[in-house]
C-alpha cells in the first residue's frame, strides 16, 4: 500500500503475501476514487459525480480530476485513466441512439478493467500516477519506486 503524497509516482502494483500471492486485490479506481452516474433532472439527463470510498471529505471533484494514471500495452501504447474518462463513459443523448442514449458506455474507457467494466489497478503491473492536485489517497498494494532506492525484487512465479 502507499499513500500518494507526490505529484509523480512510478510503482509496482501487487506484493507477495503469506498465502503465496493470491491475496493481491485489484484496486478499483471507479469505486475508490470516483465515477459518474446519469440522473434525471426534469426532462434532462445530467451526470452526477460520485466520490470514491477512499477519498477524504476535504477533496472534491475538481481535486480528483488532477489524478491521471497510466500504463503501457505490450505494443507500447499508453492506456490512461482519469476522472474525465469516467465522466465521458456514457453514450450520447442523440435520439438515434434510442435506448442507449445517456446509458453507461464503459467500453470507452481503455484501461485495465474488471468484469463489471470498472477501471482497476490490476495485480502484477506497473503504473505511473500523476497527482496534479496533491490529493492524498491510499492505494493498498502499490509500491512506489525512486531512482537509487532498492525497493525489492519481482517474484515472477506468482501470477493471477
Amino acid at each position: 500500500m502507499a499513500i500518494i503524497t507526490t505529484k509523480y509516482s512510478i510503482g509496482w502494483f501487487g506484493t507477495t503475501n503469506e498465502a503465496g500471492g493470491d491475496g493481491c486485490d485489484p484496486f478499483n479506481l471507479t469505486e475508490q476514487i470516483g465515477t459518474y452516474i446519469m440522473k434525471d433532472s426534469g426532462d434532462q439527463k445530467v451526470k452526477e459525480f460520485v466520490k470514491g470510498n477512499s477519498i477524504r471529505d476535504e477533496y472534491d471533484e475538481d481535486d480528483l480530476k488532477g489524478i491521471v494514471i497510466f500504463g503501457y500495452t505490450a505494443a507500447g501504447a499508453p492506456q490512461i485513466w482519469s476522472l474525465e474518462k469516467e465522466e465521458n463513459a456514457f453514450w450520447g443523448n442523440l435520439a438515434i441512439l434510442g435506448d442507449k442514449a445517456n446509458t453507461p458506455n464503459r467500453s470507452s474507457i481503455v484501461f485495465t478493467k474488471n468484469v463489471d467494466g470498472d477501471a482497476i489497478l490490476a495485480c502484477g503491473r506497473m503504473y505511473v500516477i500523476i497527482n496534479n492536485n496533491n490529493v492524498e489517497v491510499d492505494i493498498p498494494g502499490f509500491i512506489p519506486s525512486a531512482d537509487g532506492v532498492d525497493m525489492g525484487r519481482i517474484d515472477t512465479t506468482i501470477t493471477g
Partner: protein
Amino acid sequence: MAKIEASTCMIWGGSADSKIDRIELINYKNSIKSVIVRTKSGNLFTKFPAFGAFNAAMKYLEPGTGSILFNSNDSDIEDLVLSHVQKDAGRLVPNFIESFTTTGAEGGRYVITTSFKNDKPIYKKVGDVDWYVWYESETEKWIASRAEISKDVKYLENENCLPQYGEYFNESFSEYTQTAINWECVEVTELAGGVADANGLYCQTAFYKSNPVYVSCDEAWFLFFDGVQWVLTDTPFTREGRWLTNSSKNLTELYNNSSGNNGSGDFLNQIGKIRSLGIPEGSIRSEDGETFVFGEDASTSITSE
C-alpha cells in the same frame, strides 16, 4: 532476461530468482533512446544512455527501481522485468515494510508513502493527527515527527535501525512515546571478518514463496526460506553472491559453515547465530528461551517443535 520490442514500455530491475546488477546504460545506447525514472525528491528525470559516459546521474539503471523506457531498436536486457497492462508479471517482494503499527497516545497505523528522504521511504500515520516516520541519515535513526517532516516540531527518536521495531521516544515529548507492535524481528550475531556487516537487526518486510523475508537495516542482507532451509544472502533470493545456510527449517538453528558446504567462500568457517528479539505486543506466539515454539501464522515455518 527481458526482450524489449515495444517503442515504449515499463520495466523493473529485476526478478527474485536471479542475481541483479545495475545496468550500465551506455551499453544500450544503440537501442534505448531514454529512460524516465522518479527521483527521490519526487520529480521525473530522463536518462539518456549516450550521456552516461560523462554524466553520472545518467549512467545506471539501479536494481529495485521502476522506470519508463523508450526504445529505438529491439534489445535483450538481463536483470529487467517487463511490465505491460495485459499481463500479470508477478508480485513485488518489497525491501521495506508496507505498513506498521504503534501504540501510544497518538500511535496508530503508519503506511508507506510515495515520498522519500535519505534514501528511504517516508511513512505517514493514517488518522486525524498527522505523524510521519522518516530516516535521518546524520543520526542513522528513524524519527517520528508530528505535523511535518522535521525536527522543528514535536518529534520522537527510535534507537533501532528499522522503522517497524522498537520505541519512539524523546524525553522532551515523553507523553507522545510510541511503541511499535506486531513486528517480526531477529538479530544476527557472531559473524566476523569480511561478512561482519551481516550482523545486526533484521525485520520481516514481506513474504517469498509463502515464507517470511527478513531484511537488514541497510537492505543489504536478506534471510529467506528456500523451501528446504533458511538462507542468509546478499543477493535475494539466490545463492549467486555471498550466502550462508543453516540446513534447517528452523530459522534460529546455527548457521555453521565449518565444512565449507553451507555457504559461499566468504562465509568459510563462520558460525552465525540468530536469536528472536522476543514476542511483540499483539503477537500470537510463544517462546522457550531463544527458540520459537509456537506460531499461529506465517511464523509456523520457523517453529522448532
